[in-house]
């Protein structure tokens, strides 16, 4: 028991590693604040384009979505980080994470938002247009607010996954939470900093997980 406390919950080590780990947390937050809006907006763009009646627009979009659903985000990240320098383009870890996650998330957010837009009855658009709103206005003021509300649980669930995914940044030396914890662990030969990182992730994301769990159960109740 004492050995476990010494190795995983060592107070001295935790105090020493605190500032390094907190730095990591700040970068994780920063990274999330960057990749979530980027992914959401590019996904929104894809979802709106997917409303096109032309197959020449819809099919490539579907291929784009399927491609990124099949492609592991870490592979995409490593491909950019290790591959681009061979084209004379040195982006750095932070920018690689931003680009890789924007591509990956455009597919996920895009698919969710497309389902949301599809869930709004077509009569709504016709009604909006007949009151004199333009197509764009009808989309922004009438369709999207309802679409987003209809798929809110899925959007939140994906956002949770994106925040967790920022831990991949550690692979390309972005000093986010996991990376900093690993640094502190190798410096002290003690895994307590990794446990700290895990606890921080849990404390930050648990409320969201609870909320999602309730929303999902409510969504399913009464479908039987």
């Amino acid at each position, binding site marked *: 028991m004492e050995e476990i406390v010494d190795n995983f919950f060592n107070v001295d080590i935790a105090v020493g590693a605190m500032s390094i780990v907190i730095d990591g947390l700040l970068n994780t937050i920063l990274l999330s604040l960057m990749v979530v809006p980027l992914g959401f907006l590019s996904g929104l763009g894809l979802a709106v384009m997917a409303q096109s009646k032309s197959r020449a627009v819809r099919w490539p979009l579907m291929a784009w979505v399927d491609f990124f659903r099949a492609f*592991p985000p870490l592979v995409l990240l490593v491909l950019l980080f290790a*591959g681009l320098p061979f084209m004379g383009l040195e982006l750095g870890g932070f920018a690689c994470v931003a680009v890789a996650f924007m591509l990956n998330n455009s597919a996920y957010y895009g698919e969710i938002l497309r389902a949301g837009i599809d869930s709004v009855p077509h009569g709504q658009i016709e009604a909006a247009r007949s009151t004199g709103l333009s197509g764009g206005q009808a989309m922004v003021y009438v369709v999207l607010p309802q679409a987003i509300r209809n798929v809110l649980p899925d959007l939140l669930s994906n956002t949770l996954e994106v925040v967790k995914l920022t831990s991949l940044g550690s692979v390309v030396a972005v000093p986010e939470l996991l990376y900093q914890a*690993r640094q502190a662990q190798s410096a002290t030969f003690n895994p307590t900093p*990794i446990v700290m990182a895990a606890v921080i992730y849990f404390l930050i994301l648990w409320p969201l997980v609870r909320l999602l769990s309730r929303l999902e159960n409510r969504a*399913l109740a009464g479908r039987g």
Partner: protein
Amino acid sequence: MTAWDKFLDAFFNAKVMAKYLPDILAGTLLTIELAILIVVSGILAGLLLALVRSLSFRPLNLLIIFVVDLLRSLPPLVIIVLLYFGMPSAGWSPSGFMSTWLSLSLVLMAFSEEIFWAGITSVHKGQWEASRSTGLGFGQTLMNVVLPQALRLTIAPLTNRTIAITKGTALGTVVALHEILGMASSAVSNSYNPSPLILGSAAYLILFIPVVIAARWIEKKYSWKR
């Protein structure tokens, strides 16, 4: 050499690709093996947990909810790193394969438990009462009446989640697992040429594109009617 030739030489170098093809294939086999193991153990464990939860034994249910919440909040990579780099301090040194398999199975278990549980609770209470009143036991009702209806609802969300988590086998690279990405990365450092990464990417696409297309079909067929 033109820029285009340079590009081809860097990313689609046939000589480098031919040299490392056997490695990438070996990595692909390992990825398939790992993915199948994760899917089987993760989903079975999740179903088992959901069934235990339906017994409504409060202390046990609170424990299940806590474990599921914990596994849903932690990034899979953090769990893998914790097992691989942390556990040796507790006298257990899991291999890269073990760490990746166990972590991703646990994560899939948590997500599938939630999905199965949502499916079970979605079956109307009257169904339980009707079955019990015909003389079926609790277990018989669960297995023959509730689960068949519940599972139908779970297929689409479960497929999506399973794809997302099995793609995570690439995380094994971080703990020295020689799956596709691991093989490709070391081939890049050995050959100073990124072509093996393109080969590895192709391997992932060949593996997962059919699964994603199948998922699209399943989603249409079994989607929850809103």
